C-alpha cells in the first residue's frame, strides 16, 4: 500500500512537472501574437508573376519566401514567362488547388479579368501586384502609375521648363503602347504638359521595352534635334539603351534624362552615379515586397469574404538623383534573399 501511495505521489509530481514544462514551452502571448502565428501556419499562398528572372519579380519573391519560411506558410510560384495564356493556365491550376491567397502580376489590364472573379468566387483572396486588371481583387499592392508619370513629368519640367533657362524641347521614348504603365503614364505626362505650354515634345516614339530599339530611336532623335533639352524614359531596362545613345552622342551634359523602375542597384543607382540617368523615380522593390507581405498577412489573419473589404497599398515613390543618393537608395537581390523585404 505504501508503495502504491508513493507511486501515486510520484506520478502526481511528474504530472505537475510535465504541466509546468508544457506551460514553459508555450510561446509568450501578448494577447495577439498567438493567434497571429496560428493564423499563418500551414496556409498556402500562390504567386503568378509576369515572368520570373527579372529584378521586380525576383525581389518580391525573395521577400515573400522569407516571410513564408519564418511564419510557416508556403508560397508557390508558377512562371508564365511573359505569356498571357500560360499565365491564365497557371492561375487556373492554382485556383483548382484552392490556396488561401492568390497573388497575380497581370501582363495587361485585360489578362486576368475573368481569373480574378473566378478565384474570388472559389473563396480565394486575390492580391494584384504592380499592374492591375480592370477587375479589382481584395488588395492591390504596387505603384500608382499616374503618380509616377506626374513625378517624371514634373522632374523634366523643372529641368527644361520655365525658369530653367532651357528651350523646353523634350522627347519621350515609351514602351509597348498598350500596357497600362504607358497608357496611364502618358495621360499624366499630358496633364502636366498642358499646364506647361513651354514644354515642346519634339518626338514621341515607342521602343517596345527593348534597349536596342531605344538606342536606335534616340540616336536618330538626337541627330534631328541637336538642341534637345530632355528625354522621358519609362523603364530602366529599356532606358539603358536611350542612355547609351546619349552617351555616344556626347550629350550627357546637355540632355536631362528621367527614368523609372524598381530601383535595383545595377539598373538604377549605378546608372545615376555614372551620369546615365539624371533623375529616377523608384518604386522601391524591397518596400513593395514588405507591402506585399503585409497584404498577405492581413488576408491570412482576417480571412475576409473575398471582395468584401478591398484595399490598396500604393507604393511610396522615391525620386533619386545624384545629389540625394545614399548607400541604401537601391537594393541587390542578394540582400533581398538574405533579409527579405
Amino acid at each position, binding site marked *: 500500500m505504501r508503495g502504491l501511495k508513493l507511486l501515486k505521489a510520484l506520478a502526481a509530481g511528474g504530472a505537475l512537472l510535465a504541466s509546468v514544462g508544457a506551460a514553459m514551452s508555450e510561446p509568450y502571448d501578448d494577447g495577439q501574437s498567438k493567434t497571429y502565428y496560428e493564423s499563418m501556419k500551414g496556409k498556402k499562398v500562390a504567386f503568378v508573376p509576369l515572368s520570373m528572372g527579372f529584378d521586380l519579380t525576383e525581389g518580391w519573391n525573395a521577400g515573400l519566401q522569407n516571410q513564408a519560411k519564418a511564419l510557416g506558410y508556403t508560397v508557390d510560384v508558377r512562371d508564365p514567362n511573359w505569356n498571357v495564356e500560360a499565365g491564365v493556365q497557371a492561375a487556373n491550376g492554382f485556383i483548382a488547388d484552392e490556396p488561401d491567397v492568390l497573388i497575380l502580376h497581370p501582363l495587361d489590364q485585360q489578362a486576368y479579368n475573368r481569373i480574378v472573379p473566378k478565384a474570388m468566387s472559389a473563396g480565394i483572396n486575390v492580391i494584384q501586384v504592380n499592374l492591375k486588371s480592370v477587375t479589382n481583387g481584395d488588395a492591390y499592392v504596387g505603384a500608382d502609375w499616374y503618380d509616377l508619370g506626374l513625378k517624371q513629368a514634373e522632374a523634366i519640367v523643372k529641368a527644361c521648363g520655365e525658369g530653367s533657362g532651357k528651350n523646353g524641347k523634350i522627347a519621350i521614348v515609351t514602351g509597348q503602347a498598350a500596357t497600362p504603365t504607358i497608357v496611364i503614364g502618358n495621360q499624366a505626362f499630358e496633364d502636366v504638359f498642358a499646364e506647361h505650354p513651354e514644354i515642346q515634345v519634339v518626338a514621341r516614339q515607342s521602343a517596345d521595352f527593348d534597349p536596342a530599339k531605344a538606342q536606335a530611336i534616340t540616336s536618330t532623335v538626337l541627330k*534631328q534635334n541637336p538642341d534637345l533639352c530632355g528625354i522621358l524614359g519609362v523603364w530602366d531596362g529599356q532606358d*539603358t539603351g536611350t542612355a547609351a545613345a546619349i552617351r555616344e552622342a556626347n550629350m550627357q551634359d546637355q540632355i536631362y534624362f528621367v527614368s523609372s523602375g524598381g530601383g535595383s542597384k545595377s539598373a538604377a543607382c*549605378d546608372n545615376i552615379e555614372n551620369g546615365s540617368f539624371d533623375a529616377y523615380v523608384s518604386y522601391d522593390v524591397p518596400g513593395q515586397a514588405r507591402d506585399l507581405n503585409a497584404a498577405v498577412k492581413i488576408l491570412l489573419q482576417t480571412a475576409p469574404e473575398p471582395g468584401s473589404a478591398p484595399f490598396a497599398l500604393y507604393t511610396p515613390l522615391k525620386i533619386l538623383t545624384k545629389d540625394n543618393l545614399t548607400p541604401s537608395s537601391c537594393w541587390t*537581390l542578394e540582400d533581398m534573399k538574405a533579409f527579405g523585404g
Partner: protein
Amino acid sequence: MAILMGISQERIVVAIAAGLFVLFSIVLPGFLDAGNLLSLIQNVSILGILGVGMAIAIIGRGIDLSILSTMPVSVAWLLNLVNGGFPIWLAFLCALAFVVAVGIVNGVLIAYVEIPAIFATLAMGIVVYGFGKSLLVPIEAVYVTGGESWFYSIGSGRVLGVPTPVIVFALVAAAAWLFLRYLKPGRFIYGMGDNPAAARITGLPVRPMIVLQYVLTSIIALVAGIVMATALAGINTRLALSTMVYDVILVVVLGGIGLSGGKGGIRNVVVGTILIGILLNGMTIMNLTYTIQSILKSVILLLAIVVDTLLNPRDEQTAQHGDI
C-alpha cells in the same frame, strides 16, 4: 516572268534604297547629315551582323532561328561570369564553347538526324533560352559593370569618327565574303545549298559541312551579342522572345538571298541592311508610331518573299527535302 528573270532582286533593292535615299534627303531635314548617315548604319549594324550569319545558313539551304536565343544567352552568361570575377578571356572562351556546342547540336540534328532546319533550330532556340534562363543566367537583364575599357569600346567606341559597331559589321561581312568566295568550305556551302544530292554524289562532305555552317552562324551570333552588350551596357535574355529574328530574315531575303539556297552573297545582306536602315531612320524622323513601322516592315518582307518566289521558282530539282 521573262522580264522578271532579267532583273536581279539585288538591283531592285538597290534602286528602291537609292530612291528612298533621294526622297528622304529632299523631304526630311537633317537626313543627309553625315552624322545621321553614320548613325543610320550603326543602328542596323547588329542586325547586319546577324544577317551575315543567317545568310551563311540560308545559302547552305538551311535557316537558323536559334541565333536570337544563342546571342543573348551566351553574352549574358559571359557578362555574368565577368561580373562574378572571371577574367574576360576565360569568360569569352566559356561563351565561345557554349555557342560552338549549340552550333554542333543544331548541325547534327539537321545533318545526321535529318530534321528540317526550320524545326530543329526553332526547338533549339527554345532549349537554349530555357537552359540559359534556368541554369546560366538567373536574372534576364545583365549589365556591364565596370569592365575593361577596351572591351566596352567594342560596341560604343569610335575609330576615325566611325562608330565601332559599323566597323565590326564591315569586318564580319568581309570575313564571311572571303570565306564564301575564296575558301573551299565556302564554295562547298554554295554547292550543297544549290543541290544537296548532287553535292553528295560529287563527293562533298555534306553532313560535316552542315555542322560547320551552323557553328559559324552561332559564332557570328556571339559577335553580334558582344557588340550589342557593349553598346547598350548590358543585354537582356528576353530578346529570345522578341520578333527580332524576323528582322534578320528580312534583311537577308530582302537583299536577294533566295530561301531555296545556293544563291546570293554577303553583298545582298549589306544591301538589305542598308535599305532597312534608311527605312527605319526615315520613319523615326517622321515620328511614325511603332505599330505603323512594324506594319510597313512586314509588308516589305512579304513583298520580298513574293519577289523571291517569282525569281527563284521552286521546281522538282530544288524542292527537295530540307527546302524551307
